């Protein structure tokens, strides 16, 4: 049994890397900028289709797809913020305007069904070396694809953390996220900063997509199952905290992995939501929250 739990924990941690990666993107827009983005999962789906088609059409290994998808998604995210979200923020005073939530909900609906229209409802998969490869460490088995996604998450969280704390743009993003009115008074162009933040957040989905495509399936509805989990993780890890999102992702993966061994996957799901509510209630700042109430 112990062996089993350890194996469950191990694989949970690895899939937690993927969760963390997606949560990192959401954390930038939602945690830091407070843009309640319900289209985050759908943007992941867009990234996955890009990586898939790059592989099918040009043979580009999904791990190299970020070379193309990250700039493309950045541009997409920048444009989405510019055309859809900014006009709403300009007119609302609340820190997390609900109109933004509704707008991104509409966007998710449009993008998902656009994908369905263009690519039909097929479950698309690729076969690369990493698809089913594993490393065997004694009694335990490590999936290569999941391992690399874990590494990608570690790289991304480090990069984002350095970016937010060490660069001017990163600091500006945090300042605008804290209070966009004050930031504007201080002479920052808050709109452009929002655009960058949304763009970067979407670009991160390109990395998550690259990590997922080799061992997962691509389907118009694929992002939806990750979306709620990402929100849970962002709150769990702490709004705006990049290490928090990474740790939150790992924690969620771990909980799923271990609980799934003891009982059933569905029970783990219920438990996660319970933890989420308890967290909001008792420690709204999250595990590594930057903000105090």
């Amino acid at each position, binding site marked *: 049994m112990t062996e*089993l739990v350890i194996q*469950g924990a191990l694989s949970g941690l690895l899939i937690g890397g993927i969760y963390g990666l997606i949560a990192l993107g959401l954390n930038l827009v939602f945690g830091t900028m407070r843009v309640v983005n319900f289209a985050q999962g759908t943007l992941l789906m867009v990234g996955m289709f890009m990586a898939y088609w790059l592989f099918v059409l040009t043979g580009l290994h999904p791990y190299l797809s970020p070379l193309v998808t990250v700039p493309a998604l950045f541009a997409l995210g920048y444009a989405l913020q510019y055309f859809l979200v900014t006009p709403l923020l300009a007119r609302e005073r609340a820190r997390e305007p609900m109109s933004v939530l509704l707008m991104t909900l509409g966007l998710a609906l449009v993008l998902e069904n656009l994908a369905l229209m263009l690519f039909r409802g097929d479950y698309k*998969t690729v076969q690369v070396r990493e698809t089913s490869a*594993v490393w065997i460490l004694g009694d335990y088995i490590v999936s290569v694809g999941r391992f690399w996604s874990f590494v990608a998450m570690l790289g991304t969280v480090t990069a984002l953390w350095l970016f937010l704390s060490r660069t001017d743009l990163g600091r500006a993003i945090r300042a605008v996220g804290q209070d966009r009115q004050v930031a504007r008074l201080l002479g920052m162009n808050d709109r452009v900063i929002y655009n960058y933040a949304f763009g970067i957040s979407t670009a991160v989905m390109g990395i998550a997509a690259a990590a997922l495509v080799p061992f997962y399936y691509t389907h118009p509805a694929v992002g939806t*199952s990750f979306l709620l989990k990402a929100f849970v993780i962002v709150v769990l890890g702490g709004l705006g905290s990049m290490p928090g999102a990474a740790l939150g992702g790992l924690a969620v993966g771990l909980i799923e992995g271990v609980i799934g061994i003891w009982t059933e996957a569905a029970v783990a799901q219920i438990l996660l939501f319970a933890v989420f509510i308890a967290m909001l209630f008792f420690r709204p700042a999250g595990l590594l929250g930057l903000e105090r109430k």
Partner: protein
Amino acid sequence: MKNRRSVLLSAAALAGTAAVAGRRTARAQQEEVRVGVLSPMTGPAARFGAIQQSTLTLAAEDVNGAGGIRSLGGARIRLIFGDTRGEADMGVTETERLITRERVHALIGAFQSGVGLPSSAVAERYEIPWLNFGTVDRITQRGFRYVFRPHANDTLKARALVEGVMALARQRGGLRSGVILSENTEWGKSVADKQKIFLEQAGVEIKLVEHYPYAAPDLTSMVVKARALRPDLVVANSYLGDALLITRLMGEYRFRPTVYAAGGGGHLQPDFVRGAGALAEGVICATIWDPAVGRNIPWIKEVNDRHVARNGVPITEDAACYYQCFQVLVDALERARQVDPKKIRDAIAATDITDPNHRAMFVPCTRLTFDETGQNPTATAMAVQVQQGRLRLVYPPGVAEPDVTPIWPYRGAA
């Protein structure tokens, strides 16, 4: 004050739509037979709906091209599709629309049993014949008069799978223990119950039955847990995404039971066979129909070949059943000699086909009749195995492809 104006507005909107509707019905013609088809055209199961639609379109073109319904003076058949989105209430609304607005004479539907259950009740209420695809037993066990199922239900399908696996196992050392991994909606629950009963009757100890949420992003724990039980047999009842996940995880964790069987669903899809690659090799799957049936019956092969030529993909199990439902309807129309739904219903109930070359035998059985519940009692299922990226028929002996040797045991990627 606002109140009444809003109500006024809604009334105006409704009056408008109603006027449009009134004009539409004036078009209704007598020289066509309208058949309503309920399928999931959008949502997670959209892929299935698409093939159901293309298969039926082919069937209707064949019938119309050959002169329509002869006993009705060559009446053409018009298919009218309704999108259920895979949801019960949408199915009910669309059924209502097809019956009352499009004034269909018969209905075929609805793929998901959860949609078929309430939608067929609507058809029953309007006394419109409902030719069902959807394998859940209780669809035909409600005492309805207008609901018919020419193909196998879950019980027959589960029995065919267990019998097939056990027959193959008998010559190869037998199976002692098994686990059942099943998605947690209507179909998965219903079919897993039956499989468990039949397997236990066959002397297989079931060590675990787990129902998982099919949209779960990860199922590693379940697979790891099942592997630790070291079962001889794994039975999975999955949709597509989860079928791929489970199979790939089994591969990664070197989980190779003697037999990897599946109740149908996702494991039968071309996307699964392609996506799971070598890991799909040797998976034994229950199915009501497979294109390989055409290896023994030329006209079935011809229909399927034309579908492949036009749409790039072979006919699927569910689409074949839609095809069979359609042909049962055509047969009944010829005998009914009129389009009164009540008369069509009586003609369907009186169906008795034994000719294996009759188009309604697209899904083969010994004798196509309907018992008092509307179920075809001789309907059966078969077992296919993935071999070199193709589904090959391995059971029952009469239908099995003669040149196929079953892969035994399941080898995974090795």
